[in-house]
């Protein structure tokens, strides 16, 4: 009977994973189409700064205008893109005149590494502060941590990037500084709300140490929200990477996204959007899965 239950449980687990993968794939496809539509109908689509080049003849200007004729009808274009992508052809970037596959291969690792390092640093810092505040129970520490987060939120990303260049600090630190106050704020509020719950008060009355209370009675309660925050923080890291890379001159996906947005490079933007959507969906689905698994185990 128990074996049947565990087999059924395992089967359900696989079905759940498969369902999530399918949903993720549908999300990526839908998101790609929405992104493509937004780019297509945004003002400036089809504009090229070469149109202001007085040397060009009218035939050349007409050729420039017609260069993206195939992109004007968005549904056929998108369908064609998906068909080609399934064969490994991601298209050619109009602004960089190079195969998109090559461009992404060069830059993806840079941004991935940047985001991973920044998230690690930001999470470590936020969790350390929250634990310290929880264990030591010093109102002054909580207050100064709140104010510190608030101060960091007020500093423009450009100024942070400039500071990192000035101090020769690695780019991921600038990104970590952008992420940290948001994580710290949420985590502080979540733990602060939980430590005043009756079961925590009871545990404290029974003589448990603050560390034991945090680990056994606070974290399990907020794990769902923390995992959700972890998933969300991946999306925050990706979107924050755009200004940080652009301002620090880091040749990653973020810088590419900004440049391709300014150039209205539809082929590149579709690929980048789908990449970001896939990353965010994966992170959030992973968080949900972990949260669900732990729930089942409990």
């Amino acid at each position, binding site marked *: 009977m128990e074996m049947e239950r565990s087999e059924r449980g395992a089967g359900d687990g696989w079905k759940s994973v498969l369902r999530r993968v399918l949903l993720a794939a549908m999300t990526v496809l839908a998101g790609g189409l929405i992104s493509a539509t937004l780019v297509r109908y945004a*003002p400036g*689509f089809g*504009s090229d700064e070469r149109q202001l080049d*007085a040397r060009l003849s009218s035939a050349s200007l007409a050729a420039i205008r017609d260069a993206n004729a195939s992109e004007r009808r968005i549904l056929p274009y998108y369908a064609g893109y998906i068909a080609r992508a399934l064969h490994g052809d991601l298209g050619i970037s109009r602004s960089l005149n190079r195969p998109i596959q090559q461009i992404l291969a060069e830059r993806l690792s840079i941004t991935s590494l940047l985001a991973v390092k920044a998230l690690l640093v930001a999470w470590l810092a936020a969790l350390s502060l929250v634990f310290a505040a929880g264990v030591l129970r010093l109102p002054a520490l909580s207050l100064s941590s709140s104010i510190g987060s608030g101060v960091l939120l007020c500093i423009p990303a450009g100024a942070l990037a400039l500071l990192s260049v000035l101090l020769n600090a690695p780019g991921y630190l600038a990104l970590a500084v952008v992420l940290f106050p948001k994580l710290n704020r949420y985590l502080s509020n979540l733990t602060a709300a939980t430590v005043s719950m009756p079961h925590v008060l009871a545990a404290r009355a029974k003589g448990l140490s603050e560390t034991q209370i945090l680990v056994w009675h606070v974290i399990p309660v907020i794990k769902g929200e923390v995992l959700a925050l972890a998933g969300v923080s991946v999306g925050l890291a990706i979107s924050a990477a755009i200004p940080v890379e652009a301002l620090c001159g880091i040749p990653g996906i973020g810088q590419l996204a900004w440049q391709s947005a300014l150039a209205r490079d539809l082929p590149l933007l579709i690929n980048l959007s789908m990449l970001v959507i896939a990353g965010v969906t994966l992170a959030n689905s992973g968080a949900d899965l972990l949260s669900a698994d732990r729930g089942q185990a409990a």
Partner: protein
Amino acid sequence: MRRVFFGTCLFLVAFLAAASCSDELRFYLRSEPKTFNPALVADDSSETVRYLTGGVLLRLNRQSQNLQPELAQAWTVSRDGRTITFTLRKNVRFSDGTPFSALDVKYTMEQLMDPALHSPTGDAFRSSSGRMIVTVLGPDKVAITFPAPVAGLAALFDQVAIVSSQSARHEMASLGPFYIAEHKPGSYVYLRRNPNYWKHDVSGRQLPYLDSIKLEIQSNRDIEFLRFTRNEIHLINSMDADYFDRLALSAPAKVRDVGPSLDSEQMWFNQVPTAPIPAYKREWFRSRSFRLAISSGISRDDLCKVVFKGHAIPARGPVSPANKFWFNARLQPVPLDTKRALQLLEQDGFRLSSGKLYDRAGHPVEFSIVTNAGNRAREAMATMIQQDLRAAGITVNVVTLDFPSLIQRISKSFDYEAALLGLVNDELDPNAQMNVWLSSSEEHQWNPQQSAPATPWEAEIDQLMRAQASSMQDATRKKYYDRVQKIVADEAPFIYLVNKNALTGITPTVQGARPVPLRPQTFWNIEYLKLADERAGSGN
């Protein structure tokens, strides 16, 4: 055995010392080069790479503004202006060792003029339809015949980098002082000295002096500024006035203001008859008195002083005084004169009431100026114009747009009222601006693609521009073009505001630099630049 050992050690030390002393010039490109094909160059970064690697038949000396022989030892232009004949230097080789000959010139020109390529450089030669013919008269002699006369023909070859007809990778074999050794997309382009470069200095030493150039890609000007102050890069080719003044205080030896550049900043009103703007506003913009009044209502001196910190001069017309031959010195800048502005407006039935200006029909005079977002100088200029015109009772709304949106409005939808933009001028000859002045052209910004000239003065400009394009006499061409400049000053389709100065940054370790107003300001004589020993810390 010991001798061999010590000898090897000495060799290694010498090798390492030489490696660490190699002369590598470093500066930034502000964007990724879009192409290394010299025929397709249209952006600044690609142009920089082309200048440093491309061998040309004739070179415009950026200092004297005269043409000088390069790969062509001599040249002649036929009386009818249709044929140019070059006598080429002998025994010249590309960077990959392939020999240079007239066949390479033929190959290059045929590629350039291929209508399917849509080369901006090629289009500059197109004065009419019809085929160009290249005749190889010998291994070192070639004649190029165009279907119609091309004014300023010889000078156009300054932009034509000769590519090899024989090399496996045509565009990558270089005749210039450097060749592309490495390109890391998004990061840098690395150039190495061309071991087969034909040019030598007066003592017979082969040029260039530099071993290599590292062009890192960095669009952020603040980072460029910071790195320059730390001597991590050697040059800033073109600097904003704010940065210039800051450096002038802390490191005056590093910066140079070389006087007015060829560039100008101007605004214009939308005169397109089908533009989606209210008809009464279109009437304002088509009125000469209105345009001249606006021009008189703007303080160009303040723009130069405040926005450009004194590193600019009030513009007088389409040509900067830096263009020694073509500049019309008889034109004067328009001074701020709000009284005159109001008088001109009164002539058109405008009247001032309680500090606000109204037209004949009672509409308050209000219009928007679009300019490109992110350009601090233009945003500041637009804000200052807003304040200046407030004194005349005119309300101006400043609208900053990202560049593609701006281009769409001014080139396609014509959904704008006034625009403020700059003209980046790389060429001296007015023929390069033909498409701006011809009323039938798409680049005739204020009212493009006219089937017939909308006004008598536009018809006159059309006539004059065509006449100067078909004349081979510089003096005659100058007379015609002076008249064009006068008409533009009188009718003000463009309201010229300022000519910015060329502001450059060069670290003292760079020797031989003589910055000039023409592009590329700091490294136009790249073959002759060298680096003093950076470890010694001082240069001449």
